[in-house]
């Protein structure tokens, strides 16, 4: 069996993780296991590793085989493939198309609904956000993506009911 990462050396470390009903398996060689921190279990989560691998595949597809590179920090899809981490905040824009599907499988949703910095909670930002959501809602309805549309509608409702700018906004 070959290592899932370098695809060169024989795999000697075998990992299994069950998330929900899905079983994920990963076979690594000694060196890749070490470099991914498998022998340092505190800092290691199989999910992260799977994500890194999965993400690079998705990015491969999204980029149509061309090498995507972050204009801000120079981070490339190959770097992401290697580390499973991004280079800077801007990378989220650069690699967003490839990340969307992954975020969906990794998380409860694809939109942040928690705490926000106080400075960004002003009414102007609320308005911007409402505008963006409205746009997405129109798109979702056009695409007959009703599940997403319902979600967006709830979010818009939630957002417009908020007294702006309040201290406990977005909590």
């Amino acid at each position, binding site marked *: 069996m070959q290592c899932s990462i370098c695809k060169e050396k024989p795999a000697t470390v075998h990992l299994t993780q*069950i998330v*929900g009903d899905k079983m994920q398996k990963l076979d690594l060689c000694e060196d890749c296991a070490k470099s991914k921190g498998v022998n340092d*279990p505190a800092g290691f989560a199989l*999910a992260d590793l799977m994500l890194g691998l999965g993400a690079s595949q998705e990015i491969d597809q999204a980029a149509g085989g061309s090498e995507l590179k972050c204009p801000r920090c120079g981070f490339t899809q190959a770097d992401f493939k290697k580390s499973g981490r991004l280079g800077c905040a801007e990378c989220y824009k650069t690699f967003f198309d490839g990340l969307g599907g992954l975020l969906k499988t990794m*998380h409860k949703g694809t939109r*942040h609904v*928690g705490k*926000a910095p106080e400075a960004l909670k002003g009414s102007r930002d609320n308005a911007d956000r409402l505008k963006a959501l409205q746009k997405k809602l129109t798109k979702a309805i056009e695409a007959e993506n009703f599940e997403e549309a319902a979600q967006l509608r709830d979010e818009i409702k939630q957002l417009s009911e908020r007294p702006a700018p309040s201290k406990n906004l977005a909590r």
Partner: protein
Amino acid sequence: MKDLHEFLVSPAETARRHGPHDRIVMSSRVRLARNIRDAAFPGWAKKPERVKILETIRPAVESLPEMKDSFSEAMDNLGALDKQILVERHLISREHAAKSAGSGLVLNREETFSVMINEEDHLRMQALRPGLQLKQAWNAIDHLDSELERKLEYAFDTDLGYLTACPTNLGTGIRVSAMLHLPGLVLAEQINPIIQSVNKLGLAVRGLYGEGTEALGNVFQVSNQMTLGENEPMIVERLEKVLSQIIEHEENARQTLLEKKPKTVYNHIGRAYGILANAHSISSKETMNLLSLLRLGVDLGLFPGMERSLVDELFLTTQPAHLQKQYSDKLTAEERDLIRSDMVRERLKNVSRPVIKPPPPSTAN
């Protein structure tokens, strides 16, 4: 530069800190990941950039009222042993212990806040509490974070939330976790189904220092994995609900074991006592596993004269770095095993062997 060992609370004192449900929940922790806008994440930034970020963040953290009189140091000024001691106390991650120039740590007096600078993210700040106190820990770190955001400009996106180096932390950047002592479920062989059902709820279960079901000392860490699409109070609440169920299962498992298999329980605990009180060489792993049984014995009322804090103190002081710190010469693993057994024997000298008919254990915390 403050001396780390003069700064750190003594293990004896740490072990005497109490919190709700601490016979099962050893500690609660809430960690937030944050990054500075317009700077590469630590794993990608070059050293000069990391140093610059550290120089920006460190004074900002130090200036917070919570961090008054804190221990603040660059990681390259800490020795390997010091770093390992911080890991054994769960004050920094293993990943952070491997960092040097360009990374830092700010730790408050009470050891209730630990802020790692340039770990995987620019900021990894955590609030720690004894026992089951997730809400308190969240409120504390939420407050610290709100103060810090006035001094630093975070990388934040209205759709994606706080932007983190790894997409698994995106959104809230929160990791809520509790360290649980579950000897009853392990002895009753119910731990695996519990772990599986907890996993199904999207929560992670890890051992004291790693993955695998046979956790050292029967200590398990339960934490959330999803950080996006759910707000912080919901995440905290969900974990709290699951924890209260695990606590109930553990209490039930202990009751049932005592009723149905008292001999098995007494045998395990009696042997653990026998070895710990009489061994002349013992590894750190064996010590932890046996101390866990001793702790169970205390909870079940088998050691009327002994306090749980003694076990918890030994849990810390018998670990390799803590043990090494007490001796000036570099010890080999074999030498540590000898010294460890000496120390444990000495500390258990006045502890009588377990009583066979314990008074009914109190289920109250």
